[in-house]
């Protein structure tokens, strides 16, 4: 996946990233086996189709986060972006079916714009992305609360079909998310921009020397992250029937988890989006399994934390071997 990996592993051994992807798949398989042994209703198709659907929001927001992390950055404003964009979506639609398309288009444009501002901040202020996006997050949360202190507006009948509709049992939104992942993975491999994203994170100074458009790439990844935040916000409004000024709070850090679990290095330059998708599935399976095992929420949090630590330490081992 990473353009640097072929150079670093001249033999035909699988690249470290492929091994990481294998580990995530193995983790998922282990959880499914545990679930099947411990509870009789876990390994049913209805439940797996639920898990597939339930992964959508996290997968969508984490797709954008993967891109910022691949450039060596991070976007800590995703939670506030989702909050603001969700509250605007339902607040502006306010039950009027004819406003659905224009409002959604406007919200997506606003998401991209917020991302562009984030990217320009990173490029021109030369402040670490963590600080730029943290500041942006605080501003956006404030704006969201200025707009509405609680749930705002409503959605017309049928708008929830976006989140809940299924074709042949498969969630439509989850399938669209998978297609988006495949598209981004393809573009990352096959386009000069994709390779420039990896190069920017791998060795920014070298990327500049090579004449790669590092600044443009940086703005682009934050813009894309804003785009995916907007899609997540619209999806959540469809799932909940309304937007809320705190709807996104949990996603700021949660969006990083599938990225890390999926084998993308926080230092940038290594990893890929498919790992993130698998990471989102791993977390969905885990949450669902813990529910089926009647494990309390407090223990669920501990289990999630341990899984992250185990996963990440497993990769560190692999890195040393490689």
């Amino acid at each position: 996946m990473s353009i640097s990996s072929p150079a670093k592993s001249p033999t035909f051994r699988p690249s470290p990233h492929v091994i990481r992807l294998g580990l995530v798949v193995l983790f998922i398989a282990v959880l499914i086996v545990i679930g099947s042994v411990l509870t009789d209703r876990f390994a049913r198709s209805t439940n797996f189709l639920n898990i597939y659907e339930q992964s959508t929001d996290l997968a969508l927001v984490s797709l954008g986060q993967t891109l910022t992390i691949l450039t060596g950055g991070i976007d800590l404003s995703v939670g506030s972006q989702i909050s603001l964009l969700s509250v605007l979506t339902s607040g502006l639609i306010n039950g009027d079916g004819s406003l659905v398309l224009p409002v959604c288009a406007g919200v997506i444009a606003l998401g991209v714009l917020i991302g562009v501002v984030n990217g320009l901040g990173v490029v021109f202020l030369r402040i670490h992305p963590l600080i730029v996006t943290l500041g942006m997050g605080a501003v956006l949360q404030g704006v969201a609360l200025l707009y509405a202190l609680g749930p705002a507006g409503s959605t017309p009948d049928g708008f929830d079909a976006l989140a809940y509709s299924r074709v042949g049992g498969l969630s439509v939104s989850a399938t669209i998310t998978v297609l988006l992942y495949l598209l981004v993975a393809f573009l990352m491999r096959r386009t000069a921009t994709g390779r420039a994203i990896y190069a920017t994170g791998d060795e920014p100074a070298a990327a500049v020397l090579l004449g790669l458009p590092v600044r443009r790439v940086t703005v682009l990844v934050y813009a894309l992250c804003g785009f995916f935040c907007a899609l997540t916000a619209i999806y959540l409004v469809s799932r909940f029937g309304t937007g809320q000024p705190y709807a996104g709070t949990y996603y700021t850090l949660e969006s990083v988890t599938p990225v890390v679990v999926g084998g993308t290095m926080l230092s940038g330059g290594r990893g890929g989006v498919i790992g993130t998708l698998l990471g989102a599935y791993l977390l969905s399976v885990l949450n669902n399994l813990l529910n089926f095992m009647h494990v309390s929420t407090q223990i669920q949090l501990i289990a999630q934390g341990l899984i992250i630590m185990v996963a990440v330490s497993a990769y560190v081992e692999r890195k040393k071997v490689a």
Partner: protein
Amino acid sequence: MRDSLKTIFLGMLAVGAITAPALADGYQGAPRTMLFNPALTTCLRNTAQYKKPPPYTIGFSNAGLGDSWRVVMLDEIKQGAEDHKDVVKKLIITDAGHDDSKQVSDVQDLVSQGVDLLIVSANTEKALDPVVTRAMKQGIPVVMLDRRISSDHFVTYVNASDPMMGRLWAQWIVEKLHGKGNIVLLGGQAGSSPNENRMGPAKEIFAQYPDIHILDTVYSDWSPVKAKQVMQAVIAKYGHKIDAVWSAHGLQVPGSIEAFLEAGFKPGEIPMHTTADINGALQDALKYHVPMLEIGDPPAQGRLAIDVAIKVLSGATVPCVVTVNSQIGLTDGDETPSIPHPDRAIKDMVVPNGPPDLLITNDLGPTYNPATAHIQYPH
């Protein structure tokens, strides 16, 4: 005519039978909200379509814990299942940690675990609406507990009457202030139905008095710590201009009173507060001479929800809303025309040396302590 009489009779039977196991102290008849209801008939739900033979698996999707009221309410629901373990084979509890997204998934997971009935305490009323509506469409009866969804797509809703609490608190404040003064609204969690359905009706009362001004509306997330923080900011801004604090529950009241004390308010100077359930608020009222009206929001509604669930699964007719009676408590000398005398004086309700987070309205017995209790239940 005959039909409507029959409906009323059936309704009273259903209501009477359901309210019987509720609180031990004070008024125990049909809900006062029903007695005062000006409508000729009450809404009843025929549940014949949900009738099935026991044993039952009941799922409870909880919004979350995080405050002492919800801890006690969860123990009450476990006790309810234990009381009926002859017919309740299993009670499956999920906890969403106050995360809408997790609660939507929790409801889906409970449905795919094959529960016979769902009890849902919705984190926020709109966000859970689509998924609860879908569960009902799949034929699974849903009983809302304490926190409802915004639509009526459920079988029944067990709660204390939020609008009644909100209005009575507001009317008492208006009368205490002789229709003139400045009020702060100290809410719980924005967007949750107990908050919205108490605050909205209260505002409708205040709106009828042009000389009553709402200085600010702040949210405590039902936490005394957060209440203290937000009230410190409000007191810094308005100081002695604040004539009354309308609080949507008692959980946040001790934090608010602490904020007044730290701002230099002397005992007797702290403005009147409204409250519910929490021992610490009553202790503070007596210690610092704060005029206080308590209207209970008994966590025993958790236990009642299991009774109602079993009625639904046995095909009995149930009211569309099952209200537990709230007992009214008041500090001495603070009677008004709308509260001419309370059910109990606050000095008689308080547990003077008890923990501040004790809920005086629980019905789990005198030795019950939420911190140490371990309620057995079928699971």
